[in-house]
C-alpha cells in the first residue's frame, strides 16, 4: 500500500514536471506544418519553384484587407459597443473559470498532505461556482464570435488567414477542457481516496494545463493585434504560426493575465464565501464560510502582490515595441485612466488589509500585534494619496495663474513615476506586513533563535524601506532618465526580498510553534463586506485596463498593418468609456449573483408534502444553510 502510494506520488510529480517543462520548452518549438497556415504554405510552394524569383513570391503574398466604411455592416447600434460588452463579459468569466481550478488543485493537494478533509470539501465547493460560470463563459464566447463575424467580417477573415488551423486547435482544446472539467467535478466523490485521489489530482493538473494553453492561445490573437509579428509591413504572412504567435507582447500578457486571473478568481469566490457566511444559520456553517472567505482573500491578495511587477514588464515591453504606443497609454489621452487605476488598486489593498485586521479578532494572540495596525493604515493612506496625485491638472487659465503654472509647487513632485514607484512598493510591503502579523497572531515561536530571527526580519523591513525611498528619491529626481528607470528594478527586488524572506523566515521560526486557539466565525460582519468590495474593484479594474490595452491600437485593427475604417475608429471619451466599464461591471455582478443563487439552489431540497406538517415551521425550507 505504502509502495503504491509512493508510485502514485512519483507519477504525479513527473506529470507536474512534464507540464511545467512543456510550457517552458515551448519557447523553442518551431511549427512549420503547411496545415497551420495557408499563407505560409503558399509561400513555401512558390519558393520551391526555381523559376519564380523572390520578388515574384512576395507579390503573391496576400496583404491585409483594406476595408472601406461601407464594408462594415450597420445594424443601427455601435458595433464597437456590442463587441466591447460581450468580449469583456467573456473575459471576466474566462478569467474566473481558468483561475478557480488552479487554486482548487493546490487546496486539494493540501488536503491530501494534511489529511484534513475540510480542504477537500472547500475545493469541491469552489469548483461548484466554476462549473456554472463555465457554461456562461461558453455562451458569451459563442456570442462574441458571432458578433465579430457579423460586425467585423474583413478583420475576422484576415485573422483566420493569419492564424489558420490554430483556431481549430483552440476549438479542440475547448472540447478537451469541457470533458476534463466535468470529469474532475462530477468525479470528485468517486475518486476521493487512495490511488483514485491521485488520478483525480492528475485530472486537475490536466484541466489546468489545457486551460492555460487555451488562455495563451487566445492571448496570441490579442497581442497580434497590438504588436503583429510573422507578417510583413502590409500584413501578408511571412512566418510560421509560431512566429505569428510569439510576438513581443505575448509572454508579458500571458504572465500578467495568469496572475491577475488568480487574484480575480480568489476575490469572486471570496464574495461567495462572504455571502454564505452572512446567510449562515448555524455557528458551524458560519465558521466554515468564514474560513473559506479567509482562504479566498489569502489567494486574491497573495496573487495580487506580484501583479504590479508583471504589469510593469508589460508596459516596458510596450514602450520597447513602440514608444508612441507607450506614450499613448501612459502619457497621452489614456494617462488619466492610470489615476483611476490607482484608486481601484488602493481600494483593493485597503479592503484586503481591513479584512485581515478584522480577522485578527479570531484569536487572542493577535493582541500582541494590534498596535501595528494604525501605523500600517497610516502608511497605506499616505501612499494611496501619493499614488492618486496626477501629474497634470485640468485647470482654467485663472487657476493656472493663481498656481503659478500647470503643476502644484509642492504636490507636483508627487505626480511623476518615482514618487508613485515608492508609494506602490511601500503599499505592497505594508500589505505583506498585515499578512505576516495575521499569520503570526495565533502562534508562539518556540525555537531558541526567535529573538535573532525577529531582529533580522525587522532589519530587512527597515533597510528595504529605506532602500526603496532612497532609490526613488535619489535616482528618480537627481540623476538621468536611464538611471531613474533602472533603479525601479532595485525597488521591485527590495519588495520581493521582503516578501520571500518573510515567508521563508516564518516557516523556520514557527516550526513546532505553540498554536493558540482560533475561533472561526468570530469575525465582524463588516469584514465580510470587505470581501464584497474586492471582486467589484477587481472587475472594474479589469474592465478599465482591458480598455486601455485595447485602445493603445488607436485607429488600427491590427497595429500598423490593418486600419480600422469603421465609424468607431477613434478613442472614445473617458466619460463614455467609464459608462461602458460600469455597465459591464454591473452586468458581471448580476451574473455572479445568479451563479451564487444557482450554487445555493443545488444544495436546497424541498420536503415532501406529507412531511411538512410534521416539521416545525422554521425548518420547512430545507437544505444546507
Amino acid at each position, binding site marked *: 500500500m505504502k509502495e503504491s502510494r509512493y508510485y502514485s506520488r512519483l507519477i504525479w510529480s513527473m506529470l507536474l514536471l512534464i507540464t511545467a517543462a512543456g510550457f517552458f520548452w515551448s519557447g523553442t518549438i518551431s511549427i512549420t506544418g503547411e496545415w497551420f497556415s495557408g499563407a505560409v504554405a503558399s509561400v513555401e510552394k512558390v519558393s520551391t519553384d526555381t523559376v519564380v524569383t523572390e520578388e515574384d513570391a512576395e507579390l503573391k503574398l496576400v496583404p491585409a484587407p483594406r476595408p472601406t466604411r461601407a464594408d462594415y455592416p450597420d445594424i443601427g447600434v455601435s458595433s464597437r459597443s456590442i463587441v466591447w460588452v460581450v468580449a469583456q463579459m467573456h473575459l471576466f468569466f474566462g478569467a474566473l473559470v481558468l483561475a478557480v481550478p488552479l487554486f482548487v488543485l493546490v487546496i486539494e493537494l493540501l488536503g491530501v498532505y494534511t489529511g484534513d478533509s475540510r480542504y477537500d470539501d472547500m475545493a469541491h465547493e469552489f469548483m461548484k461556482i466554476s462549473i456554472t460560470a463555465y457554461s456562461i463563459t461558453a455562451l458569451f464566447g459563442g456570442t462574441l464570435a458571432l458578433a465579430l463575424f457579423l460586425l467585423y467580417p474583413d478583420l475576422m477573415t484576415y485573422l483566420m488567414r493569419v492564424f489558420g488551423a490554430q483556431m481549430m486547435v483552440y476549438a479542440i482544446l475547448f472540447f478537451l477542457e469541457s470533458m476534463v472539467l466535468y470529469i474532475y467535478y462530477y468525479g470528485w466523490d468517486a475518486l476521493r481516496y487512495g490511488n483514485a485521489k491521485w488520478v483525480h489530482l492528475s485530472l486537475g493538473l490536466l484541466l489546468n494545463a489545457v486551460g492555460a494553453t487555451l488562455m495563451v492561445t487566445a492571448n496570441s490573437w490579442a497581442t497580434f493585434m497590438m504588436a503583429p509579428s510573422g507578417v510583413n509591413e502590409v500584413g501578408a504572412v511571412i512566418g510560421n504560426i509560431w512566429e505569428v504567435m510569439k510576438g513581443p507582447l505575448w509572454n508579458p500578457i500571458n504572465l500578467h493575465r495568469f496572475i491577475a486571473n488568480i487574484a480575480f478568481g480568489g476575490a469572486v469566490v471570496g464574495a461567495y464565501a462572504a455571502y454564505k457566511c452572512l446567510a449562515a444559520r448555524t455557528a458551524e456553517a458560519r465558521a466554515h464560510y468564514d474560513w473559506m472567505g479567509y482562504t479566498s482573500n489569502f489567494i486574491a491578495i497573495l496573487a495580487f502582490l506580484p501583479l504590479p511587477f508583471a504589469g510593469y514588464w508589460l508596459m516596458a515591453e510596450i514602450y520597447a515595441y513602440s514608444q508612441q504606443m507607450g506614450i499613448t497609454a501612459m502619457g497621452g489621452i489614456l494617462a488619466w485612466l492610470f489615476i483611476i487605476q490607482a484608486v481601484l488598486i488602493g481600494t483593493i489593498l485597503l479592503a484586503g488589509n481591513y479584512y485581515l485586521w478584522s480577522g485578527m479578532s479570531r484569536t487572542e494572540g493577535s493582541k500582541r500585534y494590534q498596535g501595528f495596525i494604525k501605523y500600517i493604515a497610516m502608511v497605506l493612506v499616505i501612499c494611496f494619496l501619493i499614488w492618486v496625485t496626477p501629474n497634470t491638472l485640468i485647470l482654467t487659465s485663472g487657476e493656472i495663474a493663481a498656481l503659478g503654472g500647470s503643476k502644484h509647487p509642492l504636490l507636483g513632485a508627487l505626480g511623476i513615476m518615482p514618487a508613485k514607484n515608492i508609494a506602490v512598493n511601500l503599499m505592497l510591503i505594508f500589505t505583506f506586513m498585515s499578512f505576516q502579523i495575521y499569520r503570526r497572531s495565533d502562534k508562539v515561536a518556540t525555537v531558541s533563535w526567535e529573538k*535573532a530571527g525577529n531582529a533580522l526580519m525587522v532589519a530587512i523591513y527597515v533597510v528595504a524601506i529605506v532602500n526603496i525611498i532612497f532609490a526613488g528619491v535619489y535616482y528618480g529626481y537627481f540623476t538621468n532618465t536611464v538611471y531613474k528607470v533602472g533603479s525601479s528594478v532595485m525597488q521591485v527586488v527590495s519588495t520581493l526580498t521582503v516578501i520571500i524572506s518573510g515567508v521563508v523566515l516564518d516557516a523556520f521560526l514557527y516550526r513546532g510553534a505553540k498554536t493558540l486557539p482560533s475561533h472561526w466565525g468570530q469575525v465582524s460582519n463588516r469584514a465580510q463586506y470587505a470581501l464584497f468590495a474586492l471582486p467589484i474593484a477587481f472587475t472594474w479594474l479589469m474592465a478599465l485596463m482591458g480598455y486601455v490595452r485595447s485602445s493603445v491600437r488607436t485607429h488600427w485593427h491590427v497595429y500598423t498593418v490593418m486600419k480600422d475604417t469603421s465609424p468607431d475608429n477613434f478613442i472614445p471619451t473617458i466619460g463614455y468609456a467609464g459608462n461602458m466599464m460600469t455597465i459591464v461591471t454591473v452586468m458581471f455582478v448580476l451574473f455572479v449573483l445568479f451563479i451564487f443563487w444557482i450554487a445555493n439552489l443545488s444544495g436546497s431540497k424541498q420536503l415532501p408534502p406529507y412531511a411538512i406538517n410534521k416539521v416545525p415551521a422554521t425548518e420547512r425550507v430545507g437544505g444546507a444553510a
Partner: protein
Amino acid sequence: MTTNLQIWLAAFTIAFLYFYGLDHFIMSMQGLPINMDFTPAQ
C-alpha cells in the same frame, strides 16, 4: 553571551550588506554601474 544590542547590530549589518550588494548587482546587470557611494558611474 550575546547581548540584545549585538543581535540587533548583526541583523542590521547583514541586511545592509545584502541590500548594498543587491543594488550594485541589479544596476550593473542592467549596464548601469554605480560607484561605492551609489552615484552613477557612467
